[in-house]
């Protein structure tokens, strides 16, 4: 069986972005995931997002761990830097990479197993440190690569493909993020690019860790009746009360909006996230309100999506550590590592 390839058809009609690139230039290798996998849609959304942002491919670093989700960086932006790390260790590698070169735009792709089981400790500390990166959690509730056991995000009562219900409490990455001090928390659905693409753009613009929890159905092991992470379940239970638009900084902000619920968050790079609508009394900057809202929705059996929490005034890992503006990788070796005499002097200071 040969793996299919997506042919390059020389159509003149493909639009180009500011760099003169087409969306095809932001693609990667052909996906070998199951046909209909939600992850492929997330890949397509990421591809489109970077194309629309006119991001130079060589300024992107994509990282992942192990799992179906972690295969996906191969499938977008073939010209980007990439690192496929050990299981659950994407967060640590990303932290190190970001420490060494703060100029790149980091995107980590992980899954519910990679992030919430083996890698949960690293994820927690990544959020605490507020590492400046986009963290996409492709969440399908099962270990697809090992044939569909429940993962740590499976809901109580959700049934496996064989009909067995899950009895262990789920971990909600958004709730985890709220308690760990994450500064950008969004949830979306792989089957809804209209929502997902603007969220991803806002995540790229955010300074600090931007966690995007994407419900991404496993078409092979978790798309049946009784599943709470199937295409159908999501379409029937998704609540989209929080709607946002992403406004790039170059674009004149001229969209009409209502006075009452108009909230605008100016991002670090000058772009803006505009909340088109939020539920009454909701404040995306108030941790407690957000937590209450998500809990309330969850108890009703609903899944709230959108940009749930954002705090743009926080400090990221570099500010916390007072590192120079230039990437450490560009600092001359002699400055970065001034030698044993300098070390001895430093140690003397601590005596």
């Amino acid at each position, binding site marked *: 069986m040969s793996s299919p390839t997506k042919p390059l058809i020389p159509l003149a009609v493909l639009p180009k972005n500011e760099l003169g690139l087409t969306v095809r230039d932001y693609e990667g290798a052909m996906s070998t995931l199951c046909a209909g996998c939600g992850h492929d849609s997330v890949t397509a959304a990421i591809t489109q997002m970077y194309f629309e942002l006119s991001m130079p491919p060589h300024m992107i670093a994509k990282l992942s761990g192990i799992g179906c989700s972690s295969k996906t960086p191969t499938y977008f932006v073939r010209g980007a830097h990439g690192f496929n790390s050990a299981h659950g260790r994407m967060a640590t590698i990303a932290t190190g990479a970001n420490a060494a070169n703060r100029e790149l735009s980091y995107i980590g792709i992980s899954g519910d197993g990679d992030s919430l089981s083996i890698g949960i400790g690293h994820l927690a500390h990544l959020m605490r440190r507020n590492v400046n990166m986009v963290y996409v959690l492709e969440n399908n509730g099962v270990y697809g690569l090992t044939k569909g056991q429940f993962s740590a995000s499976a809901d109580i009562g959700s049934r496996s493909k064989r009909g067995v219900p899950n009895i262990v409490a789920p971990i909600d990455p958004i709730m985890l993020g709220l308690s760990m001090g994450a500064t950008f928390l969004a949830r979306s659905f792989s*089957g809804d*690019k209209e929502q997902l693409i603007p969220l991803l753009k806002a995540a790229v613009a955010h300074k600090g860790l931007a966690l995007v929890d994407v419900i991404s159905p496993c078409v092979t092991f978790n798309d049946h009746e009784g599943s709470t992470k199937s295409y159908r379940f999501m379409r029937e239970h998704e609540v989209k009360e929080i709607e946002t638009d992403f406004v790039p900084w170059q674009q004149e902000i001229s969209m009409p909006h209502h006075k009452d619920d108009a909230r605008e968050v100016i991002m670090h790079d000058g772009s803006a996230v505009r909340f088109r609508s939020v539920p009454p009394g909701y404040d995306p900057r108030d941790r407690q309100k957000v937590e209450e809202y998500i809990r309330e929705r969850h108890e009703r059996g609903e899944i709230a999506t959108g940009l749930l929490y954002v705090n743009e005034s926080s400090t990221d890992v570099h500010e916390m550590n007072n590192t120079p503006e230039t990437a450490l990788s560009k600092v001359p070796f002699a400055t970065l590592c001034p030698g044993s005499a300098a070390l001895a002097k430093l140690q003397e200071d601590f005596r």
Partner: protein
Amino acid sequence: MEPTNDQDPNYFHQVVDCQWACPAHTDVPGYIRLIAQGRFDDAYLLNRASNVFPGILGRVCDRPCEPACRRTRVDGNPVAICRLKRVASDLKGDIAEFLPHAPSVTNGKRVALIGAGPASLAVANDLLPLGYDVTIFEKYDRAGGLMRANIPEFRLPGEVLDAETQVIIDMGAEVRYNSPVESMRELLAQDFDAIFVGVGAPKGKELELPGRHDDAGGHIHIGIEWLKSVAFGHIESIGERVLIIGVGNTAMDCCRTSRRLGGRDVKVMARRPREYFKASPWELDDAEEEDIEITVNHSPKRFVIEDGRLVGMEFDIVTWDEGARHASVLETVVIECDDVILAIGQENAFEWVERDLGIEFGEWETPVLDETTLQSTLPQVFFGGDAAFGPKNIIWAVSHAHQAAISIDRLCRGEDVNERPPLTMTLASQKMGMTEWSYHNEYNPSPRQQMNHVELTQRFAALDLEVELGFDAQQTAREVQRCLNCDVQTDFTASLCIECDACIDICPVRCLTITTNGEEDDLRGRLNAPAVNPDQAIYVSSPLPQTGRVMVKDENVCVHCGLCAQRCPTAAWDMAKFELDIPYAGNFDILGKSRAAHVLTRS
């Protein structure tokens, strides 16, 4: 929009642009695949089922399929369909036993066909196997009609023409050569059950300008008359300096023939700019390759004749307004020449049809006909080919012939001629495995293969030296893979779709969208890639089960790669081979299967 009715054979038929554009609806992708498999006999027979003269048409067809070809919209150049047809014809083996045969006993019905050109021969081809007693009246001593008289042998070799005309005649038609029908009244008196008029448009148009009727020593010729005289060996030379008036395909044949009969300085004189030329672009190219000068914006004014000798022709050099409707004269020139050939068109000539027989004629001396049945106002008389609606081309003549044969058959059976047999289709899934299809679905980026020609230095040695050499094995192998298999259709079942977007994400030309329904104009504007070609349909599914949105497909640039069906987890998309079952005379049985299906056992 209402959901697209893809159960109507004409929906998928339209997607197969070449087949839709072909007047005879030849299954082009079907035979190209057979050529790709080296099954030249089958490819030839599949062709012959619909177009009757694959060897002839593989050289001189007007190729309405090629401008329509989807490949043009993808990389700018159509698949060389016509040349591939010739490959099938040139490389076929002995196919005699697979051709239709006439039964040993006739059915007692007598049909007269007037003219042994493509239209009449194609009618004979359809009626002889049904047992009809067919008599063909031919004015010359050989069959072929315009294919014999008007198309020079360097484009269509005599043996190719002989083979494909004779095979029909040998089925048992009685051909009366040298027997022009001079009176329709007399023919009607012979009590034929049906008469088919396939006499073409045999009269070359005159150019009534000063000097036309002066004694020019026989150096002013009418194009098609002149070509006919060359074809039958009555003319063997021409002057060195020749002017051709007109710039259609006949003009191209005249100028190239002149080059072979002694013309050295041959000019084609056109009144209008190049974009208004009637000749096919490839015929213009072939003429220019032979050092023929094509002069634009020269409007003929008078023949210059001195002392009973043609010395030249006077032209107004003109300039045209936008749209080339009105011309203004800049200056007048005389261009010297030895011969002038008038190739400004041809027309019907029905002076032999008496006007009191009940056969009505309309404007331009063309008969009043039913466009579908080809029946004239006298029920047992039918017209086809150029005789029906004025000059068209060979493939239209074949198309008329199939319809006329159905009409004649129904008339002779005492059935209503206006009731037509239904057009049906077969759709069959091509899935062979997870990522395997029974057709070659990979996009091949090869450019269109160029036809090799005989070297210019040798080309004029003989009048019957065929210029085009045909594709070699390598060219054929490349060209067949350029075909996008438009007949392997994307077949969608809305009830199976889970809206996972996999098909949309994988489509290399972004022709799929799931969105809320709307009016066509609105919908076309908000697809993933706007549907900008109004000539190409957009497919709209019935509402999808989960969200009630619709799947929309812009047919315009789909390359039929099958990736949507390959990435579909629920087989809502499938690649299904579409076969149009075209009805022909007498063979619409209970299954509605066409002759193609009967003749061939295809994969």
